[in-house]
């Protein structure tokens, strides 16, 4: 991807953090907030503008689970796999989503609509099992609810 404003975006982010020591993680957070992931072009641009080896940037990007290197789908389905959700049936939800969308965790469906990710505890254990689609949170989800939840977002798209 090449975005016209990429250079300026990166410049603004670096400007914001330039006086802070150890700012790399914060810079990458800002970039991911802007694009939904950290595009290689953006990493290159950070390397150039902040005068930092690309390896140093990727060293951090690949260590932390939070950073994404590929564009997310239109909707990210996050299935919580904290202990409470695990006990209350989250594995069956993952199985069902995989079966219905034919997609593995960490991947995006062929139509680019859904990205499936597993997260460690969204912090709403009282509502377990929890999945989120985009910003919408579904609590006490049953396996049989999954199809409806997916359909809900497919219709929004259509």
């Amino acid at each position, binding site marked *: 991807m090449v975005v016209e404003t990429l250079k300026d975006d990166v410049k603004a982010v670096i400007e914001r953090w330039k006086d802070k020591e150890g700012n790399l993680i914060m810079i990458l957070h800002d970039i991911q907030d802007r694009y939904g992931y950290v595009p290689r072009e953006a990493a290159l641009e950070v390397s150039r503008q902040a005068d930092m080896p690309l390896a140093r940037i990727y060293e951090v990007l690949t260590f932390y689970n939070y950073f994404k290197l590929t564009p997310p789908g239109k909707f990210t389905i996050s299935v919580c796999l904290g202990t409470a959700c695990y006990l209350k049936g989250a594995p069956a939800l993952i199985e069902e989503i995989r079966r219905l969308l034919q997609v593995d965790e960490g991947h995006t469906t062929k139509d680019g609509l859904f990205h499936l990710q597993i997260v460690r505890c*969204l*912090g*709403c*254990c*009282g*509502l377990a099992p*929890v999945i989120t689609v985009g910003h919408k*949170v579904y*609590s006490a989800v049953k396996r049989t609810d999954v199809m409806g939840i997916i359909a809900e977002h497919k219709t929004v798209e259509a």
Partner: protein
Amino acid sequence: MAMTREELNKLKSAAQSNPPRNWIRVGYSTCGVAAGAKEVLDVLNEEIKAHNMDVIVKKCGCVGLCSAEPLVEVNIEGAPRVFYGKVNKDVARRIVDEHVCQKKLVENHIYEI
């Protein structure tokens, strides 16, 4: 520009004087919001305005009763102060209609722990 201890104490007594008599608090942490606290807050605000009642609706943190979110605490003169759990838009409307206006407790949603 630093605050002095006297100013802190002045702020404290100012903040403590005239506490609102009628208020509704909505648990507004991640778990509450996930369970629908935003819609509940909006409905409560609209309904209180529509009924022209002297009631303050505000956000607060999580009380800890996560399985009963969204939680709403209601303190209205003339009725006991209670927590309502598993509140949705409909229950929020009933809270204003029945509890706030008629001073009647709403059935099936009170968590009195």
